[in-house]
């Protein structure tokens, strides 16, 4: 009997602690990022989370005068984890899409994403139309793959991969004539792979990157919005931007 009471008390205590409290100053905000999307989120040699997203997260929390803990979560489970209250926000270069809006709420954008096509230098591809009849790769479940399926599905051989790195492998081995990806990780990859380049114009899909919070968590969302505006205004954003890219990515 006593054991049952203690177990019940323990469960109530755990529930009380894990119940997502209303956002307030001085709180600890749990933030999730992926850790596999350099230069926005990745791991350094010691296993710590680093990158643009991580720096922005820390800057926003400092602006809001709150503590931040940042954890890594695989991309496939990142939204389910937010909904299940494993953490309070996702700062992992997540695009605002209508489908995602059904599960989460988004703050204002903190940078913009374009899609770009990569190919071997000297491939002769100069426009999107040149991709007709060629094999084009993308990572499954990304905005890039959806664009490729919707726009190139009929005219090109679109191949989908489980990870971005697997797609890079096939690009370098010659299986893919071209690859579509978000511009910034692609830019990062091109720095260490000189035989490849961007081709064709950038594809503007009106893709804005924002922070995801649980549906209805308006206080946290407004707080992030105010903080984003503040770090844009006072130059903190520009400093972080300059660390990674020679151009403004907002």
């Amino acid at each position, binding site marked *: 009997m006593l054991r049952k009471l203690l177990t019940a008390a323990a469960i109530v205590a755990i529930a009380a602690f894990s119940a997502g409290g209303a956002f307030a100053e001085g709180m600890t905000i749990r933030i999730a990022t992926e850790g596999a999307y350099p230069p926005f989120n990745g791991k350094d040699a010691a296993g710590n989370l680093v990158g643009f997203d991580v720096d922005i997260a820390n800057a926003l929390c400092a602006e809001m005068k709150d503590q931040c803990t940042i954890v890594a979560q695989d991309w496939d489970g990142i939204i389910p984890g937010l909904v299940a209250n494993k953490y309070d926000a996702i700062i992992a270069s997540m695009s605002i899409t209508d489908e995602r809006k059904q599960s989460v709420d988004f703050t204002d954008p903190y940078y913009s994403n374009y899609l770009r096509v990569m190919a071997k230098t000297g491939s002769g591809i100069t426009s999107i139309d040149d991709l007709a009849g060629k094999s084009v790769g993308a990572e499954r479940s990304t905005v890039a793959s959806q664009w490729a399926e919707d726009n190139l599905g009929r005219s090109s051989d679109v191949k989908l991969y489980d990870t971005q790195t*697997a797609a890079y492998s096939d690009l370098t081995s010659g299986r893919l004539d071209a690859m579509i990806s978000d511009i910034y990780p692609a830019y990062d990859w091109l720095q260490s792979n000189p035989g490849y380049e961007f081709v064709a114009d950038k594809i503007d899909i009106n893709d804005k990157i924002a922070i995801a919070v649980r549906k209805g968590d308006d206080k946290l969302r407004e707080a992030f919005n105010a903080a984003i505006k503040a770090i844009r205004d006072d130059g903190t954003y520009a400093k972080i931007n300059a660390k990674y890219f020679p151009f403004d990515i907002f």
Partner: protein
Amino acid sequence: MFEIAKSYLKLKIAMSDGVCAGLDPITPHLFASQCTRFIDGFIVTLELLVFSSLIGFAVAVLIVMARVSGRPLLSIPAQAYTYVFRGTPLLVQLWILYYGLGSLGEAGLGPLWPFFKEGWWVGLLTLVLNTSAYVAEILRGGIENLPRGQVEAAEACGMGWWLRMRRIIFPQALRIAWPAYGNEIILLLKGSALVSTVTVLDLMGQTRTIFARSYNLSIFLYGAILYLVMAGAITLILRFVEHRMAIPRVARKAAADPATAPTR
């Protein structure tokens, strides 16, 4: 040849559209809206299954012939082949052939490059190699469990090794091993789902792609149902063939008196 290929493609698209038009009124919206994708994947899986099982069987026959030939020069490589392909996971074999050999690129593979470039071909190759090892062992089990009397009688009649194999040993070994062989075909169907990891849009690949858009778990259930339909149909066909292969005298005798049935 090219014309045949084109009309085959048109046939597949027509089948897919036709099936979906028929299924549209009776299936939930989530399935109906993506139906053609599911059915396209179903057809790809079916193609892979048919080709890999047929070619795999042919290869298995060669392997088992080598294995039971009694000549070490043939039987030892055959044994090594089955050991390696049965001792490693299918996914590892697939990635070795796709990513491993693929890294050699056009320069390394030369005229074979157009083959290794495509996930479908590499997937087919891997499935053929893998299933042939299992089927070879299954056939070997059938051959070794054949009643010795028949083999001796054939030898006494003066039949050579090849004739013995062709007329007496092999057909009966196949009948004995048929249930195990049928089981392997189902395992081949389930293993074929792994080709979705190398860009092939089979039923599993389509299911994962559709799921990635909406994260609705029911998508996986629809995929599972389609696999079950295929597995069920295959099982029925296999049972039908088993029925046709059964020798009535032997089967009746076995049913009446289990002690005299051919031992497994």
